């Protein structure tokens, strides 16, 4: 009787230990019900801006005043590491130069910071990550002396890529914060 009890306990332990594995069971069975021809997303259209649009505002008496789009084109892009939202030293330099512009040529405009992510994941977390990147730039911008009330933020997650190749360099271009000016 004792041996039966002992062997039962051993069996139970074996069963229990067998079940405690953390290795996930893999289900590789996938059935494509309705195969269809893949159509690529439309290419991004590039609009050629006419010379008139890019000229210095002729209504201004001050010939050195730049238009909003001219100043915007001088603002840098701030890039980030994978899954990170902290500002690296080289990006800090870019923010400092942007802040100088914010205090001079762009001082009459509001600033909108647009946070973006690479393509890894289209969930809420990615949108929040883009926002934390924008917020990190905002804090650095404020530390450089820019009034926080001039700054608004938005995140586009992975939905606003500038590059769509499947390469590391391309993904790194998409992990960014863009400066936009608002009147």
């Amino acid at each position, binding site marked *: 009787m004792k041996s039966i009890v002992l062997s039962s306990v051993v069996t139970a332990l074996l069963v229990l230990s067998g079940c405690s594995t953390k290795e996930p069971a893999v289900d590789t069975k996938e059935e494509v019900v309705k195969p269809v021809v893949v159509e690529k997303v439309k290419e991004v259209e590039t609009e050629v801006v006419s010379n008139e649009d890019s000229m210095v505002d002729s209504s201004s008496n001050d010939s050195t005043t730049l238009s909003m789009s001219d100043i915007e084109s001088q603002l840098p892009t701030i890039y980030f590491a994978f899954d990170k939202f902290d500002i690296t030293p080289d990006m800090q330099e870019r923010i400092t130069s942007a802040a100088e512009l914010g205090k001079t040529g762009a001082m009459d405009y509001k600033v909108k910071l647009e946070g973006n992510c690479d393509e890894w994941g*289209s969930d809420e977390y*990615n949108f929040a990550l883009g926002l934390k990147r924008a917020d990190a730039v905002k804090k650095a911008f404020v530390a450089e002396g820019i009034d926080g009330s001039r700054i608004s*933020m938005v995140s586009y997650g992975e939905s*606003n890529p500038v590059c769509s190749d499947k390469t590391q360099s391309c993904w790194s271009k998409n992990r960014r914060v863009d400066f936009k000016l608002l009147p």
Partner: protein
Amino acid sequence: MKIILILLMLFGLSHANDATIEVIKKADSLPSLAVEDASISYDDTFKLQFFKALIADLNVISIFNVERFHRVTHYNATDVLVENIDMAYVLRYKMFEDDNGALNVEMKMLVEGKDVFSKNYKVSRRNIYMFIAHAIAYDINKFMGEPSVEWMKRKVIFSRIVGPKESEIVISDYSLSYQQVVVSGGFNVFPKWANNAQNAFYYTSLDSNVPTLKHLDLKTVKVKKIISSDGMMVCSDVSADSNTLLLTMAKNGQPDVYTYNLTTKKYKRETSYGGIDVNAQFMDKNKIIFISSRLGYPNVFSKDLKTNAVEQLVFYGKSNSACSSNGEYIVYKARESSNAFSKNTFNLHLISMKTDFIRRLTATGINEFPRFSKDGDAILFIKNYKEQSSIGIIRLNHNKNYLFPLKYGRVQSMDW
């Protein structure tokens, strides 16, 4: 001795219905079913289209080995076709157009030549034929005494990215055969059904300077603004009584989970960690599940709304940035590859809060945005693989996955 045996039996019984344990593949033991087409209206192309939709649905209910040959017969023929004599079940249907142009379908199930179940269906327009196919599969599943596949008849709503900062919100059936664009132009994301009747939905509009949550009533086609927040605004879940929303808002650039009462129009901050807190969903009236970066990487947590107690729920996976729960089960997305980029794979995993078991539900590509059906029978998810975006269905108790590819664009988020 008896006690040990009883304990062993109890252990076995308690784990017998655990969905985290891979079920035994029983495809070979499923009864066979053939489908006979006895339609009298419509051209051959449409007849074949309906037949394929029905076959797909009968496969998804996962209780038959379905014969895929399109065979034609007469609805009142006394015998099944000679090719189908050995089939356990024969489903025969007749499509015909009535004087009003409506599509009618008569259907009957035959077992050994006897009519065991029959029903008629009708839709006003033939281009929504897939809903009849879904209804037939639903009814047959019910007739066979299987757990409900109510989700099959529910509508799916999703946001489709069609260009940089450009999206469409689409209402479809679960198989994406039927698609109706309800919001186009601009950048609108994260659609979420506003109620169980699925006659209204919330979505985030990113067109203005401040992200804004909007509500669209499908009956009146009226859009109203609900609430705005600088930086981020997402409706992650709607309570069972449709009165409370779980929002991710970012007051001062800090993404946190908020509850929003639609009656009082007041919100309450539910999380206050300095990193990222998002993707909250109700587990029950007073408990939520959400994603937080409070460990330094995204992972799944729960919070008791009354006591404010926060608990880590998942202990496996590198970057668990999306989740859904149903009863004791949690499905979540985890990054599989150790390298951040090479062959990056995100898979869905199922855990039970009562056991240590983990079941991986997908194997390739980027699998994300898991959402349990209300009855917990199935999981809907987004799969991006080789530049194609699909909506997938996982039948947990049948150990099967089905994919429905999108013709163009990329699914950003969805709800059902």
